[in-house]
């Protein structure tokens, strides 16, 4: 292999305490020409302050409609080894747990067929295999199949669902995020692999309101654990925190958004019917407080990045469900939502935008769900109500019509 290109600008990013992506690319470039040209083109981008990638074309794996992002250099003569430089999105295992064995197998495949560069992981959650050519796509897929790794989503399909580590490594998980993630992923394989929606759709599961996968901000359906009964209190442990110098009044109670706590120096009292399950008190006293025992999840809908109607956070659809396998209640509602959205959604309209356009009330009618007060931050402020029925003269029995 030829020498690495000169990269005076990128080299400056090899110093400093944080691990350097430049060092990673160089290390790959030592044995891979794609990575070497990537290094060269990137240096050029740094010099010119502009990217050098062309708009992607559609490439993929047979039988799949997504999961590969086609990418082409706009300087193919100069950097021939990255004239094609496609990304493969590989569906990660729930919770991003691995064995060294499985990771090594992936590495071996990518050593053979790709640039040797990856993202561990993409921000949707996939294993990102960065940079290969069209002719390698099928072989990679074939070899991945042998170690049971399948392709993730792209385009207007379901994207790889992801979740926090949940009950595997967290005491606060109010439902089994990993099991649900795996179950939904398996159940919706077709939707994941064959784009048939108006636009992308993402699931993210967090075990509690701390929301460690940012599901409320970046998934069309956000499933966030919570509880219905009372926070479990170990009063001895509370006193221990106090004894060790925690200012329970100001640090704990003073930050309770529901203002529903009290501490008399001995006992911590929580008026649970006012508690909004924010997690703060539990977060700061993990040895003393725990979520209740009647656990489940809140299902929310609609978050997304700003393009084009403005960013959205997900909003409450189901205030509380127990969420037990086989999750039929959840799947039924998901199917209903997809049916309605596929029927009436516009192209490139995310489900959150769709709901805003048709109105939450109408959307609920369409998916067959009753409105509940938990769905809104507050009732309407404007008087423009579409009352649906009115009386006609002659309705002597005062039956409603419309």
């Amino acid at each position: 292999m030829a020498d690495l290109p000169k990269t005076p600008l990128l080299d400056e990013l090899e110093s400093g305490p944080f691990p350097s992506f430049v060092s990673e690319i160089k290390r790959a470039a030592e044995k891979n020409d794609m990575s070497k040209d990537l290094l060269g083109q990137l240096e050029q981008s740094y010099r010119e302050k502009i990217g050098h990638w062309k708009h992607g074309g559609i490439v993929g794996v047979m039988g799949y409609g997504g999961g590969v992002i086609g990418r082409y250099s706009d300087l193919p003569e100069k950097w021939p080894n990255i004239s094609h430089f496609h990304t493969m999105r590989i569906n990660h295992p729930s919770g991003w747990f691995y064995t060294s064995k499985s990771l090594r197998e992936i590495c071996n495949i990518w050593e053979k067929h790709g640039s040797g560069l990856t993202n561990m992981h993409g921000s949707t959650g996939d294993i990102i295999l960065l940079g290969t050519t069209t002719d390698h796509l099928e072989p990679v897929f074939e070899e991945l199949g042998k170690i049971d790794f399948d392709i993730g989503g792209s385009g207007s399909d379901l994207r790889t669902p992801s979740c926090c580590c949940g009950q595997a490594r967290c005491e606060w998980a109010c439902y089994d995020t990993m099991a649900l993630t795996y179950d939904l992923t398996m159940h919706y394989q077709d939707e994941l692999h064959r784009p048939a929606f108006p636009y992308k759709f993402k699931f993210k599961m967090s075990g509690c309101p701390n929301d460690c996968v940012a599901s409320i901000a970046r998934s069309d359906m956000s499933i966030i654990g919570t509880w219905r009964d009372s926070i479990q209190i170990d009063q001895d442990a509370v006193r221990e925190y106090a004894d060790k110098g925690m200012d329970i009044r100001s640090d704990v109670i003073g930050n309770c958004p529901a203002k529903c706590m009290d501490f008399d120096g001995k006992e911590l009292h929580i008026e649970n019917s006012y508690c909004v399950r924010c997690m703060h008190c539990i977060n700061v006293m993990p040895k003393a407080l725990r979520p209740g025992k009647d656990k489940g999840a809140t299902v929310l809908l609609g978050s997304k990045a700003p393009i084009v109607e403005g960013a959205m956070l997900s909003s409450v659809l189901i205030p509380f469900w127990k969420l037990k396998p086989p999750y039929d209640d959840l799947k039924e509602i998901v199917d209903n939502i997809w049916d309605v959205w596929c029927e009436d959604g516009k192209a490139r309209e995310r489900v959150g935008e769709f709901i805003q356009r048709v109105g939450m009330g109408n959307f609920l009618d369409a998916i067959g769900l009753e409105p509940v007060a938990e769905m809104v931050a507050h009732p309407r402020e404007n008087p423009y109500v579409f009352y649906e029925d009115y009386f006609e003269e002659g309705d002597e029995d005062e039956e409603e019509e419309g």
Partner: protein
Amino acid sequence: MADVQERRTDYGPPHYEQFLPPIIKENYGKWKYHEILKPGVMVHVSETGDKLFTIRAASPRLVCIDKIRDYCDLADKYCDGYLRFTSRHNVEFLLTKHENIEPLVADLKKLGHPIGGMGNSITSIVHTQGWVHCHSAATDASGIVKAVMDDLSEYFENMKLPGKLRIALACCLNMCGAVHCSDIAILGIHRRPPRTDHTRVKAMCEIPSVSASCPTAAIRPATVDGRASVEVIEERCMFCANCFTVCPAMPMADPLNDGVSIWIGGKVSNARSEPMFSKLAIPFIPNNPPRWPEVTQAVRALVELWASNANKYERMGEWINRIGWPKFFRMSGIEFQKEHIDDFKHAGLTYKRSTHLTF
């Protein structure tokens, strides 16, 4: 034209100074503090040591000239002829002599005017014309106001509530008054789309402006029975009456379907929390004159619920913000319905975009 020029116009209202009692002129801008001595009676103390007593009496606002003359008689008797009205249409008597307070209170009670509306109380209802004078009204104003205040008069006359509670009423969506920012608002609403009088549209209205007036594009030009007129797509109507405002041939009023809706949790002051809009609590109560018993009941239930659950100083909306709307609906027993969910321009911003929920 000569006439017009000679004519005296644009001279404006009389200067307020001539209406200020001497004690006010002397202490203008020098007031130091005030104290509510008892319901409806307060004293303002000046840096000079002067004291001004104010007695506030309920007024129906719709008053005949003889009633105004009664007020004048009392003002002459006790206040050297000085009196004022408040921004909520109560009448206030301005006294310098402490010993005049009780006799004036007694005379006002004799006249049938309760004393109060100060401090943590319910003062008079800001309201509008209703069937007394407005062509737009979906309900009467004065009648409901009288019925509700009769029912709540104890709260006008004492100061036992957690904070101030402001009620307002408007007889149609134009919302003359501050209905949109009241602790409790009673709002007249239509629920039937306009019934177009096709024989009169052409003559009385400009068809393009009528179509344009509809915010939901429910109205389009149409020929009906050979006449140029408009047609209304009824499912699209949200009863704003904007069409009626520009076209008298499209009346909205309808005895079977008009009524009131009840809105809560608004406020105007900047005290503690920022000003807030009122939100829909009860979508519809049919008109039931003369005393609208369902309305008075609903209002009382809201007042009692708030009064017995809010913290000190907590206005209705502040209380509900603390406990959350779902809990409010559970506590009040009001059924949450599709109508409560906003579907107007910024609707998406009213959806619950967090997991802060109570159970």
